[in-house]
């Protein structure tokens, strides 16, 4: 296989990953690293570098579409980014010292956890009182509902902040957006409405990934020949996925993609334990 064929195959795989990731809302980045490591036998460090770049592309590329609807809350996002970016720097520092096998095992566990989260149904809590800290930080907001604006209050700020730091560490360590953990932090800990937490998470993902991407670039993890087809493929795929999102019946696809993630997760853990990554 020469460089051209290799790039074309990886580009196609990334296109599919980005397409399904956008369609199912699970994000394409999460399957890029296992695809590169398991299918193409790419060293996990190069895979992480390429994946991070594609995560930034999807987040920034979709930002325009997300903010137009008025769901995302920029104050919540910016405040929590102080946790995710510091977490991302810590994640890179950890990645430089632990073995590829350990990274593969952690990756596998995160994949299984993401699949589990995607199978759950989210129910927004009824109107809650705001916590003092959330009011001080001006995190409470509103979003467009079917009958005019719906306001919401935010609570559980310290717990959400801690979870966001963890999301940042995982993002820096594994080269993923950790959207699943971010949504968990906002939805479960801080009781932010689901639509607000998913869209706010999307714009946080790019900023978090940028915090670790610079460090990885200076350490030679980002190989242009590999990152190029991954970035272009995932970007094109996610833009296509966002287009058909409205029309498609995604439920079956969601289960299918979750099943793929489970298989990849088990494989990553197995390869990591047997030391063959």
């Amino acid at each position, binding site marked *: *296989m*020469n*460089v*051209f064929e*290799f*790039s074309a195959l990886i580009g196609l795989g990334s296109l599919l990953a980005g397409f399904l990731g956008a369609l199912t809302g699970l994000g394409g980045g999460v399957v890029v690293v296992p695809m590169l490591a398991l299918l193409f*036998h*790419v*060293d996990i460090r*190069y895979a992480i570098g390429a994946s991070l*770049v594609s995560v*930034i*592309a999807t*987040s*920034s*590329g979709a*930002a*325009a*579409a*997300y*903010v*137009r609807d*008025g769901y*995302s809350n*920029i*104050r919540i996002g*910016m*405040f929590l*980014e*102080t946790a995710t*970016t510091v977490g991302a*720097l810590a994640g890179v520092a950890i990645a430089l010292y632990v073995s590829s096998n350990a990274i593969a095992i952690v990756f596998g566990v995160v994949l299984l956890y993401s699949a589990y989260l995607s199978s759950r149904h989210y129910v927004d809590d009824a109107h809650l009182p705001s916590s003092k800290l959330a009011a001080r*930080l*001006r995190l409470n*907001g*509103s979003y467009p509902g079917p009958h005019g*604006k719906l306001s919401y209050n935010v609570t559980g700020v310290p717990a959400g902040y801690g979870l966001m730091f963890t999301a940042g560490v995982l993002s820096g360590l594994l080269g993923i957006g950790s959207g699943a953990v971010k949504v968990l932090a906002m939805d479960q800990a801080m009781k932010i409405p689901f639509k607000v937490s998913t869209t706010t998470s999307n714009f946080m993902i*790019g*900023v978090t*990934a*940028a*915090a*670790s*991407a*610079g*460090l990885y*670039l*200076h*350490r*030679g*993890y*980002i190989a*242009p*020949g590999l*990152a*190029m*087809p991954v*970035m*272009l493929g995932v*970007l094109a795929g996610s833009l296509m996925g966002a287009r058909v999102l409205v029309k498609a019946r995604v439920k079956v696809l969601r289960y299918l993609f979750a099943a793929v993630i489970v298989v990849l997760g088990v494989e990553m853990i197995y390869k990591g334990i047997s030391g063959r990554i």
Partner: protein
Amino acid sequence: MSAQNWNDQRIEIIIGALLRTGVMLAAAVVLCGAVVYFARHGSEVPNYTVFHGEPENLKSVGAIVHGALGMSGRAIIQLGLLLLIATPVARVLFSAIAFALERDYMYVVITLIVLGILLYSLIGSSG
């Protein structure tokens, strides 16, 4: 409060459009680099199985710009990737300006902290 939210959203829409333009520009640069890279190295055998780290000329901002000006395909791709990494940084910078215009100084400080971390990662950590 609703006037503030409305302003936030208008600013967000402008920032969103800028980000999209940035991503498309980055993708175009990466594509140009890919053409040069394929023309020169398309028939070589790729090897990413063993990690050896990228060479010095693809690791720092200055060296990447220098290589791209010299029409190295990989350096042009890397320049496109740098542009891409810069889009969230630009987003945070614009947010800081937007908060300053709203006189929300608490959020100006919060945003500048995030900006400082990003700039450290992108520029300060090399060497």
